[in-house]
């Protein structure tokens, strides 16, 4: 939904007056220069670090190395902790040795305290120590003066920390203008035995602007704790490509930031965001991936405060010719990317994921923050949303419209107007007078609904939710200790403190059927505005000096949306007694949000560039664990042309979260409102999605099990092919489907890169075979969605597209077997009930489908699992086959029967007619 507001309306009008264009009002959001700590930190230039490792303080246990660092300028000591974690991860933690008060450490994001592996000392002298990082001949070198860390494998440096001397730690301090008594206390502190004989010489302690107070526009941020920023640099030798740190409206490959602002991570409700821009958006995942053709590594900077990331590269300015010259002359430095992270508060807690393959990095990151939640199958189908469906009658008519036009859909959505005066958990008494009746009507069609529940709570003493939160003291407090109040959809609103576990469990209990009146089991939830959005707050969000218990909002800001979705998902689980999988969509997110549901890219616009950028935006999210990503189909703001709308459906049908959405002020755009031709085009795109649901479901099962992304950049599967490294106008779903959607207006053709030197790809519509490692020009018409199946793969589809995915539950499968040049192929089939947690109790079918030596067989991958299905195999289509003389089916009981088949010699397509075996059983099909 929306960041449009009354206030924003005014801003927009102003913007229109000034620029005449619909775009973000940049003046509402800080640049690095306007963010005091960023400005301070960025003013530090690379050079020799003032930090020194005090080797004599080193303590090495089996699992942990600790060591004190001292800043020679101000004598403040830090404590370095170094862990070797299981799965080729190194954790580096740096905190003040004796902070004036505790500094915030992010809880709840890691799925557990990460298990460690033994560290061992290889050598030590006065210059430093060398530690072994487990088996793979990896070492970490701790240099003492100046302090730096180098992670080596063999003779290669994989990554260096503080090699540019940008480690900075603004220690907590007393304010200079406080009373003498305080200064005395400070002095006493300084002669603490931990800091023996060293008098603090606060060279860098001179007060600068913005250390104790900062004003942006009309908002003043009182900073009772003073400066607390942290910073660290990472050097990545041999790396020219870095990815990740969503959410930005940016290309897949991140750009260097030398000539502009750093990438900003600070969850914000940005009205009409601009593209190709490092500005912060709704969510933040502080994870960056670095890749070259030998290795992939990752940096996870676990900090929830406002964060800025600078990227520079020694090859960034070079032309291709310059690089070639370097190569020919064998000269010059190796390429290197330098990255620098700056956060406003908290501690340095960084996980260095050492790969070496992209898949390894995904598993490593998943081992820390968890994997994608396994969504209900239906949530992978098509969602119909609009701000707003006006009343029950409207819902009924839209539902009927889908049936009339024979377009499937699974979820219809209600935005904020469904509530009684923007009081969440309630219904408008006139427009939605009988919600259960409405939900039952939807359920009768085996469909579902999502209603919005935002975290801002109307301040209204007649509103139960507000009264309970207030009386329980669950609201976030302002700096003076009163309940924090901001302006949002309902007017004056309070913001529950979702960082508080008691608050979250109370919130979860509000989703019980007897609490949330009018709700039923087919009603799911959408959390919007959870950055949090505060219309009258600084940068449209909360004041940083608001209080979450003992912690400032400054410390936890980027976690807020994560917690909102966590509590909501928990509520949906609890209401079913732990049986049903939840579905919750969120706009704000953080590392770990993948565990709770889906995200979308917020309030985009009906413009071709917004369609294009949906691909890199979701790819970037997939790289950092959040697979269930989508963009508003059609564009939220403005009104799409029918061509743009059709192209967006065609693209969205091949992205993980597939939902059409539209702003309140736009004309209606249900799929049948653009003439019969466009209706047919949209119908076909949606139907393609439905036929592929078994494949999507399998991808999500695998993402849930392994943390691999569902929607993948090509380089993830072809890490040694530099041609793939910057591609972001096409993508893979899993390993086997390559999609190059048409995202250009008036396109007559697209050029798709088909990767893989000895591979082949089959056009899924024509079955035409193409060789890999080539740029292929594909002429397109309005009905074209260029999609290719990888030779060597088997994809199960359900071709009987029905009203909703649930209606297709028992339908038979068609197996698409695409042979590679070696005439083999493999794939998987996963089946369960589609909506409960019973798969955790091994109630599922997971089979490997394997074709080799002219035998296609189904092998049980989970012999200990139990589930039965009515679904059977109705058809097998083998692409790249030769004509057999006879086809024999052997079923589990050993019975053999002949199968009828058809062979199309022009395309080498063999179709086996109605083999009929149950999809859950062992079988073999032999071609002779």
């Amino acid at each position, binding site marked *: 939904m929306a960041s449009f507001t009354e206030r924003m309306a005014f801003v927009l009008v102003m913007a229109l007056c000034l620029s005449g264009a619909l775009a973000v009002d940049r003046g509402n959001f800080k640049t690095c220069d306007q963010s005091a700590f960023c400005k301070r930190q960025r003013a530090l230039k690379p050079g020799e670090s003032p930090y020194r490792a005090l080797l004599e303080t080193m303590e090495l246990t089996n699992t942990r190395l600790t060591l004190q660092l001292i800043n020679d300028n101000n004598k403040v000591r830090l404590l370095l902790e170094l862990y070797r974690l299981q799965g080729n991860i190194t954790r580096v933690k740096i905190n003040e040795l004796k902070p004036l008060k505790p500094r915030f450490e992010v809880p709840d994001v890691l799925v557990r305290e990460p298990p460690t592996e033994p560290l061992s000392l290889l050598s030590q002298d006065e210059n430093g120590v060398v530690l072994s990082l487990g088996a793979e001949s990896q070492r970490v070198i701790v240099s003492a003066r100046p302090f730096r860390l180098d992670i080596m494998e063999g003779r290669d440096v994989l990554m260096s920390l503080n090699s540019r001397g940008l480690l900075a730690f603004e220690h907590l301090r007393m304010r200079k203008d406080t009373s003498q008594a305080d200064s005395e206390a400070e002095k006493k502190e300084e002669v603490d035995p931990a800091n023996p004989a060293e008098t603090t010489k606060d060279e860098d302690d001179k007060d600068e602007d913005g250390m104790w107070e900062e004003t942006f526009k009309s908002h003043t941020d009182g900073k009772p704790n003073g400066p607390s920023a942290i910073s660290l640099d990472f050097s990545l030798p041999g790396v020219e490509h870095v990815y990740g740190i969503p959410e930005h409206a940016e290309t897949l490959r991140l750009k260097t930031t030398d000539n502009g602002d750093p990438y900003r991570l600070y969850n914000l409700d940005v009205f009409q965001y601009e593209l190709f821009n490092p500005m912060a958006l709704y969510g933040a995942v502080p994870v960056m991936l670095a890749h070259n053709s030998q290795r992939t590594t990752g940096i996870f900077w676990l900090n929830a405060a406002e964060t800025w990331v600078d990227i520079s590269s020694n090859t960034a300015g070079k032309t291709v010719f310059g690089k070639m010259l370097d190569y020919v002359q064998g000269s010059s430095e190796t390429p290197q990317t330098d990255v620098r992270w700056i956060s406003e508060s908290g501690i340095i807690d960084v996980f260095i994921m050492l790969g070496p393959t992209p898949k390894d990095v995904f598993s490593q990151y998943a081992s820390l923050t968890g994997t994608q939640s396994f969504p209900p199958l239906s949530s992978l189908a098509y969602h119909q949303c609009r701000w707003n469906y006006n009343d029950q*009658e409207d819902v009924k008519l839209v539902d009927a419209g889908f049936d009339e036009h024979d377009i499937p859909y699974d979820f219809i959505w209600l935005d904020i107007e469904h509530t009684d005066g923007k009081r969440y958990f309630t219904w408008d008494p006139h*427009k939605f007078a009988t919600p259960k009746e409405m939900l039952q009507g939807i359920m009768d*069609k085996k469909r579902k609904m999502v209603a919005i529940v935002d975290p801002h709570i109307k301040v209204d003493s007649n509103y139960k939710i507000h009264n309970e939160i207030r009386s329980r003291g669950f609201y976030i407090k302002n700096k003076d200790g009163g309940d924090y109040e901001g302006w949002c959809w309902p007017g004056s609103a309070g913001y529950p403190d979702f960082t508080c576990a008691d608050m979250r469990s109370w919130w979860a209990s509000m989703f019980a059927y007897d609490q949330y009146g009018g709700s039923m089991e087919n009603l799911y939830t959408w959390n919007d505005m959870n950055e949090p959005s505060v219309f009258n707050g600084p940068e449209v969000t909360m004041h940083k000096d608001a209080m979450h218990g003992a912690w400032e909002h400054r410390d936890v800001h980027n976690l807020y949306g994560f917690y909102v979705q966590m509590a909501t998902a928990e509520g949906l689980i609890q209401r079913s007694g732990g049986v049903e999988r939840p579905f919750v969509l969120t706009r704000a997110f953080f590392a770990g949000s993948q565990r709770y549901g889906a995200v979308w890219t917020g309030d985009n616009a009906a413009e071709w560039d917004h369609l294009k950028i949906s691909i890199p935006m979701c790819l970037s999210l997939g790289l950092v664990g959040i697979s269930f990503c989508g963009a508003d189909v059609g564009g939220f703001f403005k009104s799409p042309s029918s061509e743009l709308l059709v192209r967006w459906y065609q693209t969205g049908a091949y992205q993980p979260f597939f939902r059409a959405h539209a702003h309140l002020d736009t004309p209606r755009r249900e799929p049948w409102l653009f003439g019969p031709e466009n209706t047919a085009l949209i119908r076909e795109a949606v139907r393609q999605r439905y036929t592929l649901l078994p494949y999507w479901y399998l991808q999500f099962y695998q993402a849930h099990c392994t943390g691999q992304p569902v929607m993948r950049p090509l380089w993830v599967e072809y890490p040694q092919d530099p041609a793939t490294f910057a591609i972001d106008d096409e993508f893979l779903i899993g390993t086997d489907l390559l999609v190059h959607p048409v995202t250009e207006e008036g396109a007559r053709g697209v050029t798709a890169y088909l990767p893989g030197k000895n591979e082949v790809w089959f056009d899924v519509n024509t079955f035409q075979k193409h060789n890999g490692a080539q740029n292929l020009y594909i002429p397109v018409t309005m009905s074209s969605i260029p999609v290719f199946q990888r030779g060597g793969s088997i994809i199960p589809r359900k071709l*009987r597209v029905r*009203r909703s995915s649930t*209606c297709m539950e028992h339908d038979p499968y068609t197996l698409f077997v695409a042979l590679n040049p070696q005439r083999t192929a493999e794939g998987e089939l996963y089946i369960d009930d589609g909506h409960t947690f019973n798969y955790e109790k091994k109630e599922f079918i997971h089979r490997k489908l394997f074709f080799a030596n002219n035998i296609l067989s189904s092998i049980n991958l989970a012999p200990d699992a139990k589930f039965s299905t009515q679904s059977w195999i109705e058809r097998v289509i083998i692409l790249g086959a030769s004509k057999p003389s006879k086809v024999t089916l052997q079923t589990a009981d050993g019975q053999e029967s002949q199968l009828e088949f058809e062979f199309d010699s022009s395309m080498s397509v063999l179709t086996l007619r109605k083999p009929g075996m149950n999809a859950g059983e062992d079988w073999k099909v032999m071609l002779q």
Partner: protein
Amino acid sequence: MRFYVFIASVFCCAFADSRKIRGISSSYKRFYRERKSFLCIDGSKLIPFEQVNDDYCDCEDGSDEPGTSACPRGRFYCTNLGFRPHYIPSSRVNDGICDCCDASDEYNSHIRCQKTCWNLGQRERAYVEGQMRTLDEGLRLKQQLIEEGVLLWREKQAQLRELQQKAEDLHLKVEEHKKRKHQADQHKEQTLKTLQAGGAGSRQHNNTASGLFQFLDNNKDGSITVDEVQARVVTIHDEKRLLSENEAVALLGGGRQMDLTMFRHTLWDTLTKGDNVKIRDTNAALDSPVVEDPLLMAADRAAKWEATNLKKVEEAYETVNMEISDLQQKLAIDYGTDWEFLFLNSQCYKLQVYEYTYTLCPFNQVTQENTAGTQVSLGTWGMWAGEPKNQYSQMVYENGEPCWQGGSRTATVTLTCGTETALRSVKEPSKCQYIMDFQTPVACQPVLKQRGIHSEL
């Protein structure tokens, strides 16, 4: 709304060799006569007959699987005995949702469908009967309204003619009054001139009888009248006093007028003697000969009077012309082939929906008023916008109050058949786009009426 005529299928035992093929209508049975093989209806493929309805799609056109969900483009025929037969997409066969009221689409699913055709049929028949009654009543009322409309139309036409006649009359009157005003103006002008001339030359002219006569003969008609005497002759003792009529008559020798000859012998002497009367002191009169001159004042009054009269008549003429153009504009609107919509003109219909009251004044405007009393225009009369074959089924009101994001509010009014004329529903599916359902007998269409519908059910 469309009603389907159900044709009872009485092909009993006509094809003894035809086993029951699920999902086809009787008219398609001829394609499914049991033979060795089946030809897809599009002729594309010949398949063994056992493969008809075997839950595998062989024909591109889906014709081999009329009774299963196997074909993506297939359709399934619900016989729905007791109700309306119809086709559903094959994808709705055995999908766990009851689509056919005879339950025939869910022959192999976990759901148990109620057979509801009879009830539906009854309800449908009751509904159709209701509709029929409504239609009958509606058409009767419509006929009345048409008749009234014709009368109204004639009345309006008569009114127009009347107004036009009135306008014509007024036009003549205006012309006449213009003329009169012109004359009065001229007279005033002349009086003024004479007065000015008289003021300048009275002394010289007073020396001769004819000169004085001419001076006194204000209107230059060759005789002096009572008025003229009163205007210029005063008593010696009281110059200010106007002579009475009797005194003037006495001066004129007992008559009401006097010519020059008579004057020479009578009044001329009296005046030249100057014992009793004299010519008003022209010296004093010279100071303000215009204002105070009674003759001039009379002329001025007359001119003003005529001007006022002209204005009145002109105004009346303008009013009538406006009425005519108003009426012509109204009559220029398309009120349907029989002027059946004419009666809606000048009516307004209200409906409250949630917090808003909507007012539709057909052929005029649509407004929305909130509980606080703020009124917003949703559009003024635009045009008929129904489909070509029934253009009177929809009205569009446009150019209402502007919307926040540009454009202006519009209201689309759909007219449906009913026995009363009333606004039935208002919706705003998209911001500033209003859709109204307006029921009225005049929207009833006799083409809808198909007697004998469902009589076999």
